[in-house]
């Protein structure tokens, strides 16, 4: 056992209202700079939709993530020789047009325009060339555009559906969408690290945060293609790549990352997990249907005496182990098993997990009465119809499976049944119209019980900020001690980066 610690996240998609507050918090803090205007380390996508950059999930084009060749796990961008031989121009790299060209407006025209018959306007100009441009794409350009023929219908995840199912998804009554906020997953088996020829990208041993060393990055851009989530970005001004840093300066001072702190829907959870680093490669090597299970296997039980002893022996501090025990992410992911990684088939073992959304079911209003289409005739009462019709959920379960479980619908099915049992149980308490029989059945199919249901309910609906974010102590002072003088550091500011971050010659 080679125990390491990893900061992990859970996003509860039922709670996301798609307000983009998270993206703005991140933008204001980190990417409001020349060359980074187009970057959204955190972005919120409408699904079904093509996302940002457009069709990022299409790995046949972008070659992100890993694949198994025989018995070998290789970056989809191929092996080492191939990378170096293609270093002069790497074809699978997305360009600015796959994101959008950043722009501003010529505001001064509003003041300086000579008097005339027409209103002066502020023309959009490109932030790269300074020339006027026609805006054809922008941040969250496809926001809420469910059913759109350009965006929603080109979602790569729809490939898992039959033609009929796809058609149905486009019927006006069935139009549906949900939001999926995305950021760097700080993966256990990061493909960006593996594809960086300079070795500039690394995982911090103590907390698993994936960072790009700006002084070592030589701008070969392989990580941009290599990351299957397209969460490594090329700064066109500095000529270096950048990515989400999980607000490590905030975490080190005990603060919550900006996107999570500002989240209006309070959908975000952060906590530390213990995992077995020796298992990483093997768990990324199994067939698609086993990927989620093997990933969960690498995560260790922080209450297990054996794990605790081994962790201590490896120098993991007691406070960190306690933080792992209190981690909300451990509960969602491993204990209750209601959260799944996004696209596990990319094989990077992402450490950001999603609770899939309980989408509305298909229903219609007829003569003033709300009717669930295809309702289970044995379900007597309305609430059972509402809660039980899993097959009738408006987002086809296959679609969610394509997002969160490499196509395995049973995983989504289990989560749904459990979450529905939680809702029924809470309804039995607050409304009191659920029979004991129905409740028993719900608990059985949902593989849960009253105690767990209450815990899930509490952490979903009522958590305090300290319950949502359990930040382990990061022992920054020891880090400083190991690379320099603490007193020197105290009198300095910032990241110890003295030169201007820009291209020089």
């Amino acid at each position, binding site marked *: 056992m080679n125990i390491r610690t990893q900061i992990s996240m859970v996003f509860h998609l039922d709670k996301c209202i798609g307000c983009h507050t998270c993206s703005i918090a991140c933008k204001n803090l980190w990417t409001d700079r020349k060359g980074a205007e187009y970057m959204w380390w955190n972005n919120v996508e409408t699904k079904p939709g093509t996302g940002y950059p457009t069709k990022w999930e299409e790995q046949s084009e972008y070659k992100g993530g890993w694949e198994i060749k025989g018995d070998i796990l290789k*970056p989809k961008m191929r092996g*080492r*020789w191939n*990378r*170096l031989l293609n*270093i*002069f*121009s*790497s*074809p699978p*790299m997305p*360009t*600015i047009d796959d994101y959008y*060209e950043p722009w501003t407006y010529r505001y001064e025209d509003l003041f300086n325009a000579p008097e005339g018959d027409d209103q002066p306007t502020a023309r959009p100009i*490109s932030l*790269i*060339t*300074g*020339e006027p441009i026609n805006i054809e794409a922008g941040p969250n350009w496809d926001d809420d555009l469910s059913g759109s023929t350009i965006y929603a219908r080109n979602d790569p995840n729809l490939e898992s559906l039959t033609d009929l199912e796809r058609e149905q998804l486009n019927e006006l009554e069935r139009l549906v969408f949900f939001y999926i906020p995305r950021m760097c997953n700080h993966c256990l*088996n*990061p493909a960006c*690290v*593996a594809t960086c*020829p*300079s*070795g500039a*990208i*690394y*995982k*911090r*041993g*103590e907390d698993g945060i994936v960072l790009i060393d*700006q*002084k*070592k*990055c*030589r*701008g*070969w*851009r392989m990580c*941009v293609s290599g990351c299957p989530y397209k969460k490594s970005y*090329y700064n*066109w*001004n500095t*000529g*270096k790549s950048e990515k989400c840093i999980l607000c490590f300066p905030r975490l080190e001072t005990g603060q919550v990352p900006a996107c999570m702190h500002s989240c209006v829907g309070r959908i975000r959870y952060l906590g530390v997990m213990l995992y077995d680093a020796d298992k*990483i490669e093997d768990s990324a090597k199994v067939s698609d249907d086993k990927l989620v299970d093997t990933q969960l296997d690498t995560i260790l039980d922080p209450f297990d005496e054996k794990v605790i002893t081994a962790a201590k022996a490896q*120098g993991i501090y007691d406070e960190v182990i306690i933080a792992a025990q209190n981690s909300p992410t451990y509960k969602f992911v491993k204990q209750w098993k209601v959260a799944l990684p996004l696209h596990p088939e990319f094989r990077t073992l992402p450490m950001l997990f999603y609770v899939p959304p309980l989408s509305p079911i298909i229903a219609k209003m007829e003569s003033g009465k709300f009717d669930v289409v295809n309702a289970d005739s044995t379900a007597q009462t309305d609430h059972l119809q509402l809660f039980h019709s899993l097959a009738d959920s408006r987002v086809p379960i296959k679609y969610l499976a394509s997002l969160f479980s490499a196509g395995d619908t049973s995983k989504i099915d289990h989560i749904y049944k459990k979450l529905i049992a939680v809702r029924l149980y809470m309804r039995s308490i607050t409304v009191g119209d659920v029979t004991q029989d129905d409740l028993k059945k719900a608990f059985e199919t949902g593989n849960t019980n009253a105690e767990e249901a209450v815990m899930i309910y509490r952490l979903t609906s009522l958590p305090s900020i300290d319950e949502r974010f359990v930040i382990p102590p990061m022992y920054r002072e*020891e*880090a400083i001690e*190991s*690379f320099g003088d603490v007193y020197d550091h105290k009198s300095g500011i910032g990241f110890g980066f003295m*030169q201007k*971050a820009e*291209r*020089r*010659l």
Partner: protein
Amino acid sequence: MTNSFLFIAFPYLSVTIAVIFTVYRFTTDRYSYSSYSSQFLENKELFWGSVPWHYGIIIILLLHIFALIIPGAYRWLLAGSRIELFESIGLGLAFLSFVGLIILAVRRLSDSKVTAVSYATDWLLLFLFLFQVGSGIYIALTYRWGSLWYLNTIVPWIWSLFSFTPDSSYVVVLPMIVKLHILNAFFLIAIIPFTRLVHIISAPIPYLWRPYQIARWYK
């Protein structure tokens, strides 16, 4: 006097400048040690320019150096009718890199986004390389079997420089265009540390054997 400056002092000077400032930039500003890539702004033309350019020029450069370091093996390679094959391959590679360069130059001029991020040194390098490859092709076509007389003129001259017994008489008799080719080459060496050419040194060869995953610990 001019000759001894151009073919003795200047080569020494340019190599000295290159070494000192390359080391200086490496130690004081390693952040900048790369070639600024504009592939993110324009992808398609770059492929047709950059790939032929790099493959052409790297092989030709290696052949120049190969003749310099192991002249014996090089002479064997050229023996008999093999020289015709050798020269045609060389010429083919030269054309390849020349075409690549022209595509790169056109791209830099015509794509407004790429123009916007171009530095003066980018234009300078394009110009110098166009001249260098162009003059090389011209020499190959007009002064036959350059690969052979290179061995008897420039190679011993450079060796004389290496061994600190400089003797410019090997090269002063060469035609003007060859002299310009030589001087431009040493000028290019001198400006390595002041341009994006430093990326030659940061070629990521260790990638071939390092493990895929990297973790950094502060303990």
